[in-house]
């Protein structure tokens, strides 16, 4: 996996993190000051900062750093989270989302100068107070007790350590050591003193000495003056410290860098001639001392019979803890049992605490789509098998019913894997509302319901834009201004309700406002002005409401910054239909409007009407179908040689023969002998002429582009039970191109 792929995961985390924070902000806004709520925001920002640094997004890192500093002060209570400060925190959060998006898409970094200034102003003054670092001092080592023999031994050990450290540099020969002594006459003098509890923290001084020796360092002396007598010695206590000389040519930074990662030690570094030349002079003799070690240790009189002295390994690692084997017997064994119950407690505690987070697994979407596809194939194969068996009069066998049930369950389970909660979309809405409040000066309360309702990932991804448009529309056109609301006796705060729910195999998403409702007189006037309807036409309230979806319709007195973005509600309807969905309006004068989107739960399966046209079988998406009928003479009006209109309760709908557009031969062309299916497309209603209707059922959608090539007027294909391919009609494209009938209408008009 390359860095880019990891970076993609990072951005995914960012998005999930950012989306997850809206809930925290809603709580904070409602007055919740729970520590974990603000902590969640802090963690989210903190994680982004970490990733931004790792992936080299410097501006994002700098921004998150400033932001995090403020959040930290809020989190630790230094700053009180007033509503003004919360506004700033939320505004900064919105800009953070922009920052992340810019970093992800490689766009220009948003202008954050003002925000950085505001953040820094908000943190100002309080930083100094918290920045005072606690002084770091090594605890004083216990005073040395004396025991002549042992002190001598330790003095030896002190000299062994440097020798061992040197031994780790393979190329270091006695001659080199001598040479470095020469160079070291004017050199760095470093005192390295590990903190007393360094061993408790997993530190190993020897490794640092080894690092220094790699720089060309030479240990000149080991101070063991604080070593107590053997009976008072704590083997896990760091008594020793070292003075090291390093050649003058070594850069100071390189020396300091060795200790950069830790402060579990005190170091002092100065330049000058080495004090105590004898120490340096003795260094070359050290290897002799090392040779004597085993004999030396063996000759020690052991004070207690239980104590066992293990020979010191002549490997570098053993040097610093070399004091451990000569420990008083009580020390190590007693420490272990004491620690054990504590460990057990901790373990059982961690076991009994149930993990509240859901267990998830990230799967490559391609793999998932492959699975969905395979299951689709299985469904088709099962249908073919069922048909073949029924031809042999084996249709009703229980095994076949079982297989059918299993296949359907498998299909549903697989679809469920792709399902995502609407939350991912809904969580972006509070920000949109906040922005709208700023732009329109209206006060809005958002109510959200059913955000855990799940729907296919593709639907989730593609519903965002139409939904945003509807929200903007609700705030901009639906809600009255604060003054108007007060005048109408309403609460000054407008309400936008967003909800999602499953309804008979589909998801219904509703955007409702408690505003003034659709002004039908104005809509009507505007529609007449725009030539969308005839001034004398009689329309029901519902039909007038639906006019706002007509292309080019806009009722805003002034094209506002909010909704007047060059796209109208017609685009919303088009997008919803492209998802196999329908949109409905309900509006009550003075009470508000409600837009309902009804969408399929998945795009992999389509509800379709199976029809016959000539020798072909076609599928018409059910979402577009208004009604189907076998026309009689009185509802059919002919224009020209082959054009005709269907009279649907007073409205004239052009009749379009699918066979003409898809070049299907031997199809029925006489509407009276055929079936007309009235569909709702971009250009209004059209009656599609087909030979007959076979069935109405779900079909598995296969991409024509992926398997063959794109075709005009065809949205995809499916494989029928008998193994034949049926094309799925693209209603919008078919009706938009217009048939001879539509052409005839234009001439007539």
């Amino acid at each position: 996996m390359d860095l880019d792929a990891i970076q993609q995961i990072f951005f995914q985390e960012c998005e999930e993190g950012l989306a997850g924070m809206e809930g925290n902000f809603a709580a904070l806004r409602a007055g919740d000051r729970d520590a974990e709520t603000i902590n969640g925001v802090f963690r989210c920002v903190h994680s982004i900062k970490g990733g931004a640094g790792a992936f080299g997004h410097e501006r994002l890192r700098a921004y998150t750093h400033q932001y995090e500093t403020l959040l930290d002060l809020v989190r630790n209570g230094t700053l009180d989270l007033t509503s003004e400060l919360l506004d700033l925190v939320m505004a900064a959060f919105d800009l953070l989302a922009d920052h992340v998006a810019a970093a992800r898409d490689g766009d220009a970094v948003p202008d954050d100068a003002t925000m950085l200034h505001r953040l820094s102003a908000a943190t100002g003054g309080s930083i100094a107070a918290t920045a005072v670092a606690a002084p770091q001092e090594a605890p004083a080592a216990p005073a040395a007790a004396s025991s002549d023999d042992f002190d001598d031994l330790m003095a030896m050990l002190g000299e062994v350590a440097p020798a061992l450290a040197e031994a780790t540099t393979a190329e270091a020969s006695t001659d080199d050591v001598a040479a470095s002594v020469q160079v070291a006459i004017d050199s760095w003098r470093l005192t390295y003193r590990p903190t007393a509890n360094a061993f408790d923290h997993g530190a190993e001084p020897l490794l640092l000495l080894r690092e220094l020796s790699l720089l060309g360092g030479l240990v000149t002396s080991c101070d063991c003056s604080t070593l107590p007598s053997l009976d008072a010695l704590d083997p896990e206590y760091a008594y020793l410290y070292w003075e090291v000389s390093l050649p003058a040519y070594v850069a100071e930074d390189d020396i300091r860098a060795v200790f950069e990662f830790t402060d579990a030690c005190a170091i002092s570094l100065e330049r000058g001639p080495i004090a105590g030349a004898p120490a340096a002079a003795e260094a070359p003799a050290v290897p002799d001392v090392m040779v004597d070690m085993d004999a030396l240790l063996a000759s020690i009189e052991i004070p207690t019979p239980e104590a066992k002295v293990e020979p010191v390994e002549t490997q570098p690692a053993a040097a610093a803890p070399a004091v451990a084997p000569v420990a008083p017997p009580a020390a190590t064994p007693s420490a272990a049992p004491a620690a054990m119950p504590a460990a057990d407690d901790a373990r059982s505690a961690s076991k009994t605490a149930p993990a509240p987070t859901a267990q998830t697994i990230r799967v490559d979407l391609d793999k998932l789509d492959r699975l969905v596809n395979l299951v689709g194939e299985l469904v088709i194969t099962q249908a073919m098998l069922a048909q073949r068996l029924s031809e042999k009069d084996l249709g009703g066998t229980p095994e076949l019913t079982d297989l059918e049930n299993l296949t359907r369950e498998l299909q549903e389970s697989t679809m469920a894997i792709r399902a995502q909660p609407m939350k991912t979309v809904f969580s972006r809405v509070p920000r949109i509302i906040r922005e709208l409040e700023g732009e329109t000066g209206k006060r809005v309360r958002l109510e959200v319901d059913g955000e855990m309702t799940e729907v296919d990932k593709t639907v989730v991804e593609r519903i965002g834009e139409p939904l945003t448009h509807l929200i903007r529309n609700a705030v901009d056109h639906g809600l009255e201004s604060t003054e108007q609301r007060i005048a109408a006796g309403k609460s000054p705060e407008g309400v936008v309700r967003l909800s999602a729910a499953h309804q008979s195999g589909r998801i219904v998403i509703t955007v409702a406002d408690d505003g003034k409702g659709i002004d039908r007189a104005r809509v009507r006037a505007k529609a007449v002005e725009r030539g969308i309807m005839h001034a004398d036409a009689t329309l029901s309230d519902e039909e007038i409401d639906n006019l706002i979806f007509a292309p080019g319709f806009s009722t805003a007195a002034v094209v506002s910054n909010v909704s007047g973005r060059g796209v109208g509600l017609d685009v919303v309807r088009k997008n919803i239909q492209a998802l196999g969905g329908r949109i409905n309006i309900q509006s009550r004068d003075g009470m508000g409007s409600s837009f309902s989107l009804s969408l399929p739960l998945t795009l992999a399966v389509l509800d379709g009407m199976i029809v016959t046209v000539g020798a072909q079988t076609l599928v018409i998406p059910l979402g577009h179908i208004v009604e189907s009928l076998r026309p009689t003479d009185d509802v059919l009006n002919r224009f020209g040689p082959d054009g005709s209109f269907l009279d649907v309760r007073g409205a004239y709908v052009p009749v379009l023969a699918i066979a003409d557009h898809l070049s299907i031969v031997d199809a029925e062309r006489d509407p009276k002998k055929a079936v007309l299916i009235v569909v709702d497309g971009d250009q209004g209603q059209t009656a599609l002429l087909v030979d007959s209707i076979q069935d109405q059922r779900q079909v598995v959608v296969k991409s024509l582009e992926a398997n063959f090539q794109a075709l005009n007027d065809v949205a995809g294909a499916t494989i029928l039970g008998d193994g034949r391919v049926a094309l799925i009609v693209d209603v919008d494209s078919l009706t938009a191109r217009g048939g001879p009938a539509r052409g005839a209408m234009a001439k007539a008009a």
Partner: protein
Amino acid sequence: MTAKTILTVDDSPSMRMLLRIALTDLGYSVVEAEDGVHALEKLDGLEPDLLITDINMPRMDGFGLISEVRGQGRRGLPILVLTTESSDEKKQRARDAGATGWIVKPFHPDKLATAIRRVLH
């Protein structure tokens, strides 16, 4: 010789993955945990040679984890803290809890290798 085992603890999958790649390249075997609680579960029956942990994590943060680990008697286990904090206060807290040292994020793989070399035999 079997590879040394390093337990990495970070709530960010991308950070864990970066560590895994860097550490695997260095020849270590890597075990991962998502937070302090998860790390303690992993440590049950595992004797890693080094623990590398993030500080800010849900459920149990890095400070809590280090205290727990030391409290379990694992005092010789080197623990490196991954931190974006350069603040001395955080380092102080990490050390008080029992951390051996730290690696400041963002880290270059070389820097990671160097830091590990200083705490791992």
